[in-house]
Protein backbone atom coordinates (compact mmCIF):
# COMPACT_ATOMS: atom_id res chain seq x y z
CA UNK A 1 0.00 0.00 0.00
CA UNK A 2 2.73 2.43 0.96
CA UNK A 3 4.87 1.42 -1.99
CA UNK A 4 1.99 2.21 -4.30
CA UNK A 5 1.61 5.64 -2.71
CA UNK A 6 5.36 6.34 -3.05
CA UNK A 7 5.29 5.32 -6.70
CA UNK A 8 2.15 7.34 -7.38
CA UNK A 9 3.60 10.44 -5.71
CA UNK A 10 6.85 10.20 -7.64
CA UNK A 11 5.13 9.68 -10.99
CA UNK A 12 2.67 12.48 -10.36
CA UNK A 13 5.39 14.90 -9.20
CA UNK A 14 7.60 14.21 -12.22
CA UNK A 15 4.70 14.39 -14.63
CA UNK A 16 3.38 17.64 -13.16
CA UNK A 17 6.83 19.24 -13.17
CA UNK A 18 7.42 18.12 -16.75
CA UNK A 19 4.12 19.63 -17.92
CA UNK A 20 4.77 22.80 -15.89
CA UNK A 21 8.22 23.31 -17.37
CA UNK A 22 7.28 22.53 -20.98
CA UNK A 23 3.72 23.45 -21.95
CA UNK A 24 2.82 25.37 -18.79
CA UNK A 25 5.60 27.96 -18.69
CA UNK A 26 4.59 31.38 -17.34
CA UNK A 27 5.61 34.53 -19.23
CA UNK A 28 8.57 36.09 -17.36
CA UNK A 29 10.59 33.04 -16.36
CA UNK A 30 10.89 34.06 -12.71
CA UNK A 31 7.16 33.66 -12.21
CA UNK A 32 7.45 29.90 -12.68
CA UNK A 33 8.23 29.81 -8.96
CA UNK A 34 4.49 29.80 -8.27
CA UNK A 35 4.56 26.12 -9.17
CA UNK A 36 6.50 25.54 -5.95
CA UNK A 37 4.95 28.39 -3.97
CA UNK A 38 1.20 27.80 -4.19
CA UNK A 39 1.23 24.00 -3.65
CA UNK A 40 3.44 24.36 -0.58
CA UNK A 41 1.14 27.04 0.84
CA UNK A 42 -1.87 24.75 0.44
CA UNK A 43 0.00 21.78 1.91
CA UNK A 44 1.25 23.78 4.91
CA UNK A 45 -2.33 24.76 5.69
CA UNK A 46 -3.46 21.15 5.26
CA UNK A 47 -0.80 20.04 7.76
CA UNK A 48 -2.33 22.45 10.24
CA UNK A 49 -5.74 20.89 9.69
CA UNK A 50 -4.19 17.47 10.40
CA UNK A 51 -2.52 18.92 13.51
CA UNK A 52 -5.89 20.15 14.77
CA UNK A 53 -7.67 16.88 14.09
CA UNK A 54 -4.87 14.85 15.69
CA UNK A 55 -4.74 17.08 18.78
CA UNK A 56 -8.49 16.82 19.16
CA UNK A 57 -8.32 13.07 18.66
CA UNK A 58 -5.64 12.66 21.30
CA UNK A 59 -7.52 14.68 23.92
CA UNK A 60 -10.67 12.72 23.13
CA UNK A 61 -9.28 9.19 23.10
CA UNK A 62 -5.83 9.35 24.71
CA UNK A 63 -4.40 6.97 22.09
CA UNK A 64 -0.66 7.53 21.43
CA UNK A 65 -1.20 7.12 17.69
CA UNK A 66 -2.89 10.54 17.48
CA UNK A 67 0.07 12.14 19.21
CA UNK A 68 2.52 10.73 16.66
CA UNK A 69 0.34 11.97 13.81
CA UNK A 70 0.29 15.45 15.38
CA UNK A 71 4.08 15.53 15.77
CA UNK A 72 4.59 14.27 12.23
CA UNK A 73 2.20 16.83 10.74
CA UNK A 74 3.95 19.66 12.58
CA UNK A 75 7.29 18.58 11.16
CA UNK A 76 5.96 18.17 7.64
CA UNK A 77 4.16 21.50 8.04
CA UNK A 78 7.49 23.07 8.92
CA UNK A 79 9.04 21.70 5.71
CA UNK A 80 6.25 23.10 3.54
CA UNK A 81 6.18 26.41 5.42
CA UNK A 82 9.94 26.74 4.89
CA UNK A 83 9.54 26.12 1.14
CA UNK A 84 6.63 28.59 1.09
CA UNK A 85 8.62 31.36 2.77
CA UNK A 86 11.82 30.69 0.84
CA UNK A 87 10.17 30.69 -2.59
CA UNK A 88 8.08 33.72 -1.65
CA UNK A 89 11.15 35.58 -0.51
CA UNK A 90 13.12 34.75 -3.66
CA UNK A 91 10.21 35.80 -5.86
CA UNK A 92 9.65 39.07 -4.03
CA UNK A 93 13.35 39.91 -4.38
CA UNK A 94 13.09 39.31 -8.13
CA UNK A 95 9.79 41.14 -8.55
CA UNK A 96 9.85 44.03 -6.06
CA UNK A 97 13.52 44.10 -5.05
CA UNK A 98 12.85 43.35 -1.37
CA UNK A 99 13.35 40.10 0.54
CA UNK A 100 10.59 40.61 3.06
CA UNK A 101 8.07 43.27 3.94
CA UNK A 102 5.15 43.32 6.36
CA UNK A 103 2.30 42.62 3.99
CA UNK A 104 -0.73 40.46 4.94
CA UNK A 105 0.14 37.22 3.22
CA UNK A 106 3.83 37.47 4.09
CA UNK A 107 2.94 37.93 7.75
CA UNK A 108 0.57 34.98 7.68
CA UNK A 109 3.10 32.63 6.10
CA UNK A 110 5.83 33.76 8.50
CA UNK A 111 3.52 33.05 11.43
CA UNK A 112 2.76 29.59 10.01
CA UNK A 113 6.48 28.87 10.08
CA UNK A 114 6.89 30.23 13.62
CA UNK A 115 3.95 28.20 14.92
CA UNK A 116 5.50 24.97 13.59
CA UNK A 117 8.90 25.82 15.09
CA UNK A 118 7.42 26.73 18.47
CA UNK A 119 5.36 23.55 18.50
CA UNK A 120 8.51 21.49 17.94
CA UNK A 121 10.45 23.43 20.60
CA UNK A 122 7.64 22.81 23.09
CA UNK A 123 7.66 19.14 22.17
CA UNK A 124 11.38 18.80 22.71
CA UNK A 125 11.31 20.49 26.11
CA UNK A 126 8.91 18.19 27.98
CA UNK A 127 10.19 14.80 29.05
CA UNK A 128 7.32 12.84 30.54
CA UNK A 129 5.56 11.11 27.64
CA UNK A 130 1.91 11.50 28.68
CA UNK A 131 2.31 15.09 29.77
CA UNK A 132 4.08 15.97 26.54
CA UNK A 133 1.39 14.42 24.42
CA UNK A 134 -1.40 16.21 26.26
CA UNK A 135 0.28 19.61 26.31
CA UNK A 136 1.31 19.39 22.67
CA UNK A 137 -2.26 18.50 21.71
CA UNK A 138 -3.52 21.57 23.59
CA UNK A 139 -0.92 23.82 21.99
CA UNK A 140 -1.64 22.33 18.57
CA UNK A 141 -5.31 23.25 18.87
CA UNK A 142 -4.49 26.77 20.04
CA UNK A 143 -1.94 27.21 17.24
CA UNK A 144 -4.44 26.15 14.58
CA UNK A 145 -7.02 28.61 15.93
CA UNK A 146 -4.32 31.26 15.61
CA UNK A 147 -4.01 30.79 11.83
CA UNK A 148 -7.37 32.30 10.74
CA UNK A 149 -6.94 35.03 13.35
CA UNK A 150 -3.58 35.99 11.84
CA UNK A 151 -5.00 35.94 8.33
CA UNK A 152 -7.80 38.32 9.37
CA UNK A 153 -5.71 40.63 11.55
CA UNK A 154 -2.99 41.02 8.91
CA UNK A 155 -5.62 42.77 6.76
CA UNK A 156 -5.06 45.90 8.82
CA UNK A 157 -1.85 46.34 6.86
CA UNK A 158 -1.65 47.43 3.19
CA UNK A 159 -0.97 44.68 0.62
CA UNK A 160 1.61 44.51 -2.18
CA UNK A 161 1.03 40.85 -2.95
CA UNK A 162 -0.47 39.73 -6.27
CA UNK A 163 -4.11 39.24 -5.35
CA UNK A 164 -5.08 36.99 -8.25
CA UNK A 165 -3.06 34.93 -10.63
CA UNK A 166 -4.56 34.65 -14.08
CA UNK A 167 -3.52 31.93 -16.48
CA UNK A 168 -2.93 32.40 -20.20
CA UNK A 169 -3.32 28.78 -21.25
CA UNK A 170 -5.14 25.71 -20.01
CA UNK A 171 -1.77 23.95 -19.52
CA UNK A 172 -0.77 26.35 -16.78
CA UNK A 173 -3.91 25.65 -14.78
CA UNK A 174 -3.53 21.93 -15.36
CA UNK A 175 0.07 21.83 -14.22
CA UNK A 176 -0.67 23.90 -11.14
CA UNK A 177 -3.57 21.60 -10.25
CA UNK A 178 -1.43 18.52 -10.80
CA UNK A 179 1.36 19.94 -8.68
CA UNK A 180 -1.05 20.73 -5.85
CA UNK A 181 -2.29 17.16 -6.02
CA UNK A 182 1.25 15.75 -6.14
CA UNK A 183 2.31 17.86 -3.17
CA UNK A 184 -0.77 16.76 -1.33
CA UNK A 185 0.24 13.13 -1.84
CA UNK A 186 3.78 14.00 -0.81
CA UNK A 187 2.55 15.60 2.43
CA UNK A 188 0.36 12.60 3.23
CA UNK A 189 3.25 10.25 2.52
CA UNK A 190 5.69 12.22 4.67
CA UNK A 191 3.24 12.38 7.58
CA UNK A 192 2.66 8.65 7.26
CA UNK A 193 6.38 7.81 7.21
CA UNK A 194 7.20 10.15 10.09
CA UNK A 195 4.35 8.75 12.18
CA UNK A 196 5.74 5.26 11.66
CA UNK A 197 9.24 6.37 12.61
CA UNK A 198 7.98 8.02 15.80
CA UNK A 199 5.92 4.98 16.63
CA UNK A 200 8.82 2.54 16.26
CA UNK A 201 11.07 4.91 18.19
CA UNK A 202 8.58 4.97 21.05
CA UNK A 203 8.34 1.17 20.97
CA UNK A 204 12.12 0.85 21.08
CA UNK A 205 12.46 3.29 23.98
CA UNK A 206 9.76 1.52 25.93
CA UNK A 207 11.59 -1.78 25.47
CA UNK A 208 14.85 -0.28 26.63
CA UNK A 209 13.29 1.36 29.68
CA UNK A 210 11.30 -1.51 31.06
Amino acid at each position, binding site marked *: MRRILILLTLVLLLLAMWIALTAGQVAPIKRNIIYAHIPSAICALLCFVVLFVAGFGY*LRTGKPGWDYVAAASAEVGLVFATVLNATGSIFSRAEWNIWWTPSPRLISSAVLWFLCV*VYLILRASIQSYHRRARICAVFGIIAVIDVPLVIIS*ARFIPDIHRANFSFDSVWQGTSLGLLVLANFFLAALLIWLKTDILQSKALLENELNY
Partner: protein
Amino acid sequence: MNYFCKSLWAIFAKDIVTEFRSKQVLPTMIVLGMLIAWVLRIVSEAASLSTTVIGPAVLWIAFLFSGLLAQERSFAVEEQEDCIAGLLLAPVDPGTIYIAKLFTNIIMLCVFELVVVPVIFLTFQLSVADKWFEFITVLLLGNIGISCVGTLFSAMVQLSRIRGSLLSVLVLVILMPMMIPATFALLLLFGAIPGELAGSGTLALVGNFKTAIGYMVAFDAVYTVTCWLLFGFVVQE
Protein backbone atom coordinates in the same frame (compact mmCIF):
# COMPACT_ATOMS: atom_id res chain seq x y z
CA MET B 1 -23.27 29.21 40.34
CA ASN B 2 -22.95 30.29 43.93
CA TYR B 3 -20.40 27.54 44.52
CA PHE B 4 -18.49 28.63 41.44
CA CYS B 5 -18.34 32.23 42.68
CA LYS B 6 -17.25 31.20 46.17
CA SER B 7 -14.43 28.94 44.98
CA LEU B 8 -13.40 31.53 42.39
CA TRP B 9 -13.19 34.18 45.08
CA ALA B 10 -11.23 31.89 47.42
CA ILE B 11 -8.49 31.16 44.87
CA PHE B 12 -8.41 34.74 43.59
CA ALA B 13 -8.15 36.22 47.09
CA LYS B 14 -5.40 33.76 48.03
CA ASP B 15 -3.30 34.75 45.00
CA ILE B 16 -3.81 38.48 45.43
CA VAL B 17 -3.07 38.37 49.16
CA THR B 18 0.11 36.32 48.74
CA GLU B 19 1.33 38.67 46.02
CA PHE B 20 0.62 41.85 47.96
CA ARG B 21 2.23 40.42 51.11
CA SER B 22 5.35 39.02 49.49
CA LYS B 23 5.69 41.79 46.86
CA GLN B 24 7.72 39.43 44.70
CA VAL B 25 6.69 40.20 41.16
CA LEU B 26 4.85 43.51 40.98
CA PRO B 27 7.90 45.72 41.75
CA THR B 28 9.97 43.78 39.19
CA MET B 29 7.23 44.23 36.59
CA ILE B 30 7.01 47.95 37.20
CA VAL B 31 10.75 48.46 37.05
CA LEU B 32 11.02 46.37 33.87
CA GLY B 33 8.22 48.38 32.25
CA MET B 34 9.87 51.67 33.16
CA LEU B 35 13.26 50.48 31.93
CA ILE B 36 11.82 49.40 28.58
CA ALA B 37 10.14 52.79 28.19
CA TRP B 38 13.28 54.65 29.21
CA VAL B 39 15.62 52.73 26.84
CA LEU B 40 13.25 53.12 23.89
CA ARG B 41 12.75 56.82 24.65
CA ILE B 42 16.49 57.37 24.37
CA VAL B 43 16.65 55.37 21.15
CA SER B 44 13.71 57.25 19.65
CA GLU B 45 15.46 60.53 20.44
CA ALA B 46 18.68 59.34 18.81
CA ALA B 47 16.80 58.27 15.68
CA SER B 48 14.57 61.38 15.89
CA LEU B 49 11.41 59.28 15.59
CA SER B 50 7.99 60.75 16.20
CA THR B 51 6.96 59.85 19.76
CA THR B 52 3.30 59.36 18.80
CA VAL B 53 4.36 56.66 16.35
CA ILE B 54 6.71 54.80 18.70
CA GLY B 55 4.54 55.33 21.81
CA PRO B 56 1.97 52.56 21.10
CA ALA B 57 4.75 50.10 20.33
CA VAL B 58 6.48 50.94 23.62
CA LEU B 59 3.23 50.53 25.56
CA TRP B 60 2.58 47.07 24.14
CA ILE B 61 6.19 45.90 24.48
CA ALA B 62 6.21 46.98 28.13
CA PHE B 63 2.86 45.23 28.80
CA LEU B 64 3.85 42.05 26.99
CA PHE B 65 7.15 41.53 28.74
CA SER B 66 5.97 42.59 32.19
CA GLY B 67 2.86 40.47 31.72
CA LEU B 68 5.12 37.49 31.07
CA LEU B 69 6.63 37.97 34.53
CA ALA B 70 3.20 37.94 36.17
CA GLN B 71 2.08 34.89 34.20
CA GLU B 72 5.21 32.91 34.89
CA ARG B 73 4.69 33.47 38.58
CA SER B 74 1.02 32.45 38.59
CA PHE B 75 1.78 28.73 38.52
CA ALA B 76 5.38 28.83 39.75
CA VAL B 77 4.15 29.82 43.23
CA GLU B 78 2.01 26.69 43.31
CA GLU B 79 5.04 24.46 42.80
CA GLN B 80 6.43 25.17 46.28
CA GLU B 81 5.35 22.50 48.77
CA ASP B 82 3.35 20.98 45.90
CA CYS B 83 0.46 23.40 46.34
CA ILE B 84 -0.83 22.61 42.86
CA ALA B 85 -1.71 19.08 43.99
CA GLY B 86 -3.78 20.49 46.84
CA LEU B 87 -5.49 22.92 44.51
CA LEU B 88 -6.34 20.16 42.06
CA LEU B 89 -7.56 17.84 44.81
CA ALA B 90 -9.99 20.50 46.04
CA PRO B 91 -13.54 19.85 44.82
CA VAL B 92 -13.55 22.59 42.18
CA ASP B 93 -13.65 22.44 38.42
CA PRO B 94 -10.21 23.07 36.83
CA GLY B 95 -11.90 25.78 34.76
CA THR B 96 -12.60 27.70 37.97
CA ILE B 97 -8.90 27.60 38.85
CA TYR B 98 -8.11 28.95 35.39
CA ILE B 99 -10.61 31.82 35.67
CA ALA B 100 -9.31 32.75 39.13
CA LYS B 101 -5.70 32.78 37.94
CA LEU B 102 -6.77 34.80 34.89
CA PHE B 103 -8.41 37.43 37.10
CA THR B 104 -5.29 37.61 39.27
CA ASN B 105 -3.12 38.19 36.21
CA ILE B 106 -5.47 40.83 34.82
CA ILE B 107 -5.52 42.68 38.15
CA MET B 108 -1.71 42.53 38.39
CA LEU B 109 -1.38 43.98 34.89
CA CYS B 110 -3.91 46.72 35.73
CA VAL B 111 -1.98 47.74 38.85
CA PHE B 112 1.21 47.70 36.77
CA GLU B 113 -0.42 49.92 34.14
CA LEU B 114 -1.61 52.41 36.74
CA VAL B 115 2.06 53.17 37.41
CA VAL B 116 3.67 52.63 34.03
CA VAL B 117 1.15 54.28 31.69
CA PRO B 118 1.58 57.75 33.31
CA VAL B 119 5.35 57.29 33.15
CA ILE B 120 5.21 56.45 29.44
CA PHE B 121 2.79 59.33 28.82
CA LEU B 122 5.17 61.76 30.48
CA THR B 123 8.39 60.54 28.89
CA PHE B 124 6.90 60.27 25.40
CA GLN B 125 4.72 63.39 25.71
CA LEU B 126 1.65 61.47 24.57
CA SER B 127 -1.90 62.67 24.84
CA VAL B 128 -5.23 61.09 23.96
CA ALA B 129 -7.16 64.40 24.26
CA ASP B 130 -10.65 63.52 25.53
CA LYS B 131 -10.60 59.87 24.48
CA TRP B 132 -9.79 58.41 27.89
CA PHE B 133 -12.64 55.94 27.80
CA GLU B 134 -11.53 54.48 24.43
CA PHE B 135 -7.94 54.35 25.62
CA ILE B 136 -8.84 52.40 28.76
CA THR B 137 -11.02 50.03 26.73
CA VAL B 138 -8.12 49.22 24.40
CA LEU B 139 -5.77 48.64 27.33
CA LEU B 140 -8.28 46.39 29.12
CA LEU B 141 -8.94 44.31 26.01
CA GLY B 142 -5.19 43.98 25.52
CA ASN B 143 -4.78 42.93 29.16
CA ILE B 144 -7.41 40.22 28.83
CA GLY B 145 -5.82 38.91 25.62
CA ILE B 146 -2.30 38.84 27.05
CA SER B 147 -3.44 37.22 30.31
CA CYS B 148 -5.82 34.58 28.95
CA VAL B 149 -3.16 33.03 26.71
CA GLY B 150 -0.35 33.53 29.21
CA THR B 151 -2.20 31.91 32.12
CA LEU B 152 -2.81 28.69 30.21
CA PHE B 153 0.76 28.56 28.88
CA SER B 154 2.14 29.19 32.35
CA ALA B 155 0.47 25.97 33.49
CA MET B 156 1.75 24.22 30.36
CA VAL B 157 5.43 25.02 30.85
CA GLN B 158 5.54 24.23 34.57
CA LEU B 159 7.35 20.91 34.33
CA SER B 160 9.57 21.70 31.37
CA ARG B 161 13.25 22.39 31.73
CA ILE B 162 13.28 25.88 30.23
CA ARG B 163 10.04 27.32 31.56
CA GLY B 164 10.66 31.08 31.39
CA SER B 165 12.07 31.30 27.90
CA LEU B 166 9.59 28.76 26.58
CA LEU B 167 6.67 30.75 28.00
CA SER B 168 7.79 33.94 26.27
CA VAL B 169 8.13 32.20 22.90
CA LEU B 170 4.73 30.53 23.17
CA VAL B 171 2.91 33.66 24.29
CA LEU B 172 4.49 36.00 21.76
CA VAL B 173 3.75 33.83 18.73
CA ILE B 174 0.11 33.28 19.70
CA LEU B 175 -0.47 36.94 20.62
CA MET B 176 0.99 38.18 17.36
CA PRO B 177 -2.40 38.57 15.59
CA MET B 178 -3.81 40.65 18.46
CA MET B 179 -0.87 43.03 18.49
CA ILE B 180 -1.61 44.36 14.98
CA PRO B 181 -5.10 45.79 15.73
CA ALA B 182 -4.02 46.73 19.27
CA THR B 183 -1.17 48.88 17.98
CA PHE B 184 -3.38 50.19 15.19
CA ALA B 185 -6.05 51.31 17.69
CA LEU B 186 -3.49 53.14 19.85
CA LEU B 187 -1.94 54.80 16.79
CA LEU B 188 -5.40 56.12 15.92
CA LEU B 189 -6.00 57.38 19.48
CA PHE B 190 -2.68 59.22 19.56
CA GLY B 191 -3.43 60.73 16.17
CA ALA B 192 -0.39 59.22 14.46
CA ILE B 193 -2.38 57.97 11.43
CA PRO B 194 -5.58 59.20 9.74
CA GLY B 195 -8.92 57.93 11.01
CA GLU B 196 -9.84 55.75 8.06
CA LEU B 197 -7.35 53.45 6.40
CA ALA B 198 -8.67 51.06 3.78
CA GLY B 199 -7.74 47.45 4.36
CA SER B 200 -6.86 45.28 1.42
CA GLY B 201 -7.39 41.95 -0.26
CA THR B 202 -10.35 39.64 -0.38
CA LEU B 203 -11.09 39.70 3.36
CA ALA B 204 -10.60 43.46 3.52
CA LEU B 205 -11.23 45.09 6.85
CA VAL B 206 -11.78 48.80 6.81
CA GLY B 207 -9.10 49.91 9.17
CA ASN B 208 -10.93 52.15 11.62
CA PHE B 209 -11.10 52.21 15.39
CA LYS B 210 -14.28 50.17 15.61
CA THR B 211 -12.99 47.22 13.56
CA ALA B 212 -9.81 47.16 15.64
CA ILE B 213 -11.84 47.04 18.86
CA GLY B 214 -14.16 44.43 17.35
CA TYR B 215 -11.21 42.28 16.39
CA MET B 216 -9.75 42.50 19.88
CA VAL B 217 -13.08 41.57 21.48
CA ALA B 218 -13.33 38.56 19.15
CA PHE B 219 -9.74 37.50 19.91
CA ASP B 220 -10.31 37.74 23.67
CA ALA B 221 -13.57 35.82 23.47
CA VAL B 222 -12.14 33.03 21.30
CA TYR B 223 -9.05 32.51 23.41
CA THR B 224 -10.66 32.90 26.83
CA VAL B 225 -13.22 30.22 25.99
CA THR B 226 -10.70 27.90 24.31
CA CYS B 227 -8.16 28.19 27.11
CA TRP B 228 -10.87 27.72 29.75
CA LEU B 229 -12.03 24.54 28.03
CA LEU B 230 -8.52 23.16 27.48
CA PHE B 231 -7.14 24.00 30.93
CA GLY B 232 -8.43 20.76 32.44
CA PHE B 233 -6.24 18.72 30.07
CA VAL B 234 -3.13 20.72 30.91
CA VAL B 235 -3.22 20.21 34.67
CA GLN B 236 -4.48 16.61 34.58
CA GLU B 237 -2.04 14.14 36.15
